């Protein structure tokens, strides 16, 4: 098992190298001059040229990439073109906000979505089932920015219960987390319901019933565990996705997270900042994926034996 984990960790290296090259190429080859963007329309061409020289932008793209990677290997991710601060300081300052938001977003959606999905499946075609599927449909269809603004209008402006912007206290995270959870929750309700429905028709469930097992034991012990694999996949994918920053939600709730950082940096062609944030997210997502695979093995012993063999 340890060998498997080690192998998976080693596989992150080529992934990171590939991603770094792709992102660096995109940043270098798309139109737009970072020096001109920093200096704006008012600067003369001589100033722009001088700044390009200062920033080392006149070197060949491949040379720049290798120089950059050399520094990265030494742990130096560079200085932001725009803010002139070490990029990792900025990424680290924002990552906790993104992590907390993603954590609560996923937790809420799991805590609400999975039980509703189970109840829906167990009580198929009941009123609960119909309502929960309706709610899931609505939640999937609502755009996050709209839901966010509506929650702000209701809880912040009308009821004056919760703050609308910022990250200063735990209260600031409630509305964004609920907004973020809505979409994933809808997916989880539908996914849990459909996999549960599939599982409870299996022979081994019928066998469990024949053995005289209680309904709760059948649902939670025999059915749920087998139904969880695809659900965990969805949770893993969404969590990874949210670690990349929920740009829309961060913007609506004025939260300094990785999503807004990446978008702003891409617009300003701030290559060091874009590279650091993307690499950071790539590593985080790779680790989450690894964790998901490990979870599989604990839930399904067959997978564990495969890992052991590999």
């Amino acid at each position, binding site marked *: 098992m340890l060998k498997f984990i080690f192998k998976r960790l080693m596989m992150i290296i080529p992934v990171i190298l590939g991603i770094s090259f792709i992102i660096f190429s995109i940043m270098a080859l798309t139109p737009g001059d970072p020096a*001109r*963007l920093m200096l704006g329309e008012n600067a003369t061409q001589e100033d722009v040229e001088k700044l390009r020289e200062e920033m080392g932008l006149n070197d060949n793209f491949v040379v720049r990439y290798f120089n950059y990677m050399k520094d990265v290997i030494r742990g130096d991710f560079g200085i932001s073109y725009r803010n002139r601060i070490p990029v990792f300081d900025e990424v680290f300052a924002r990552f906790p906000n993104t992590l907390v938001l993603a954590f609560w977003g996923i937790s809420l959606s799991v805590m609400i979505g999975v039980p509703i999905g189970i109840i829906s499946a167990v009580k198929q075609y009941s009123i609960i089932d119909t309502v929960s599927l309706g709610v899931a449909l609505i939640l999937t269809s609502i755009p996050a920015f709209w839901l966010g603004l509506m929650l702000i209008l209701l809880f912040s402006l009308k009821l004056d219960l919760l703050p609308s912007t910022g990250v200063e206290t735990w209260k600031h995270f409630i509305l964004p987390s609920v907004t973020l959870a809505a979409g994933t929750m809808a997916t989880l309700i539908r996914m849990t319901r459909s996999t549960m429905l599939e599982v409870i028709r299996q022979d081994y469930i019928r066998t469990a019933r024949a053995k005289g097992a209680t309904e709760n034991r059948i649902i939670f012990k025999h059915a749920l565990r087998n139904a969880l694999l695809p659900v965990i996949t969805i949770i893993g994918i969404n969590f990874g996705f949210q670690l990349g920053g929920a740009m829309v939600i961060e913007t609506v709730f004025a939260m300094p997270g990785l999503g807004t950082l990446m978008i702003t940096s891409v617009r300003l062609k701030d290559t060091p900042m874009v590279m650091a944030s993307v690499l950071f997210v790539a590593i985080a997502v790779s680790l989450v994926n690894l964790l*998901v695979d490990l979870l599989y093995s604990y839930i399904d012993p067959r997978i564990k034996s495969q890992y052991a063999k590999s």
Partner: protein
Amino acid sequence: MKLKSIFCYLLIFALVLTGCSGGGNNTSNTELKEETGNNEVQSDPVKDSVVFSINAEPSTLDPQKGNDLLTFMVHCQIFDTLIRESSDGTLVPGIAEEWKFSDDGKEIVFKLRNDVKFHNGDQMTADDVVFSFNRAINSTFTKRITGSMDRMEKVDDSNVKLILKYSYGPVLDCIATSNLGIVSQKAVEADEEGFARNPVGTGAFKFVEWSNGEKIVFESFDDYYRGEANIKNLTFKIISDKTSAAVALENGEVDVLLSPAEADRNNLIDNENIKYYETESNSFYFISFNNEEGLFSNKLLREAISYAIDRESLIIGALEGNGAALESAIPTNCFGAPQNFKGNQYDVEKAKALLAEAGYPNGLTVKLPTLYLDPTEVLQDQLRQIGITAEIEQMERGAWLQDVYTDNKYEITVGSYSALVPDADQITYNRYHGDFVGGGNNMVRCNIPELNEALDLARTSQDPEVRKAEYTKVSEIIRDESVLIPLYSSINGIAANKDLKGVQAHPVQRAYVYDYSWQ
């Protein structure tokens, strides 16, 4: 078996628990922040704090490295200038008590105040002023402000001399911008890079904290030479979504909102707890042509388009009526803007006739790259009326600056310019002078000797009347040659809690929180 199940279920949530370590750390952070928040709440009864919403993060707090309007606005709170802008826009003594020009207008001697202190407690000296000016003059970020300046020299402990390359009409306006804010030489030399995040100036507010992407906090400087500010705590809160910012203003989370969205304007005006201030900006939007190459080297074609534009409909269609039609290429708040100037007036028949005369009786199709979709869509429709099919290409700012602005690979485009100081030179000289064709600045690629001459004279004359007359001539040449078609000036708005006094809208979005006080 039971233990194993518990372990299994625990692991199911291990995915989300990956956030625990970071989340845990963050919890302690948020608790700390909550305490700070409580302190702020406790100080509310005396109401001496202001939370100011801005929609982006300033690039730096180093005045000699800032070059966007938002960054300038934040710098205004931290740094003082030799000459300052008063609330009515006139220039009054700042750190310099008085100044005197040499006869040829190329040298200015400033007498400095002797009671100015830096935020770190040090006395401000003539050396700091000389250091700050020369640092600005040598910076790549400040050339539009310092381009006319050669160097500054110390005369004695209370006098400094600024030496110009040429006599420059708007030099005093330039000196009043934060690019020429006085910095502590000691602090800069101790940590040049770090200064951008830990500035030491002489201004009304001193730096406390910068939380990346979230807020920048200042407190009043008790040794400020003009007396301590009424506002003791100033927080710039970064809220990039303008609608969220408007809600935050409405529910009292912020006290001032710079540049609200046009869509929120009426709501804010109607809100009885909020006061809305606005003024015409020094920025204007235009249709620009490549006068030198391609289709629009044909003057008749440019002229045809100038008659096809209905500015009033454009403002209603693209800005919900919240703009000011501009007929000269100089915004009305700038020195030198001609009075009652008339551009080519909307006349579809005349435009069609000119189009036919230009050789396109059946119209033509053009590519129309732009940064601004709303006005361009209205313009597209107006051009269609005379038979011109415009294919809009909305571009990212970086790409537009590269392809259109710098490399001039375009025929017609829609863009905007801002005058950093309220003087026509700032928005005309580099834009239309033959010396700046290509490589940015003169993107219209015009080189008209009479225009060059008028621009030169207007720049260097020391007689304001001569300067005004030359700028009228500049506007006339731009109109007669249809070098570029000015469309409208935007309106700068600022909304604030109605009890906060001293708030003013500004043509280049400056704000002086020192003038604010709670009623």
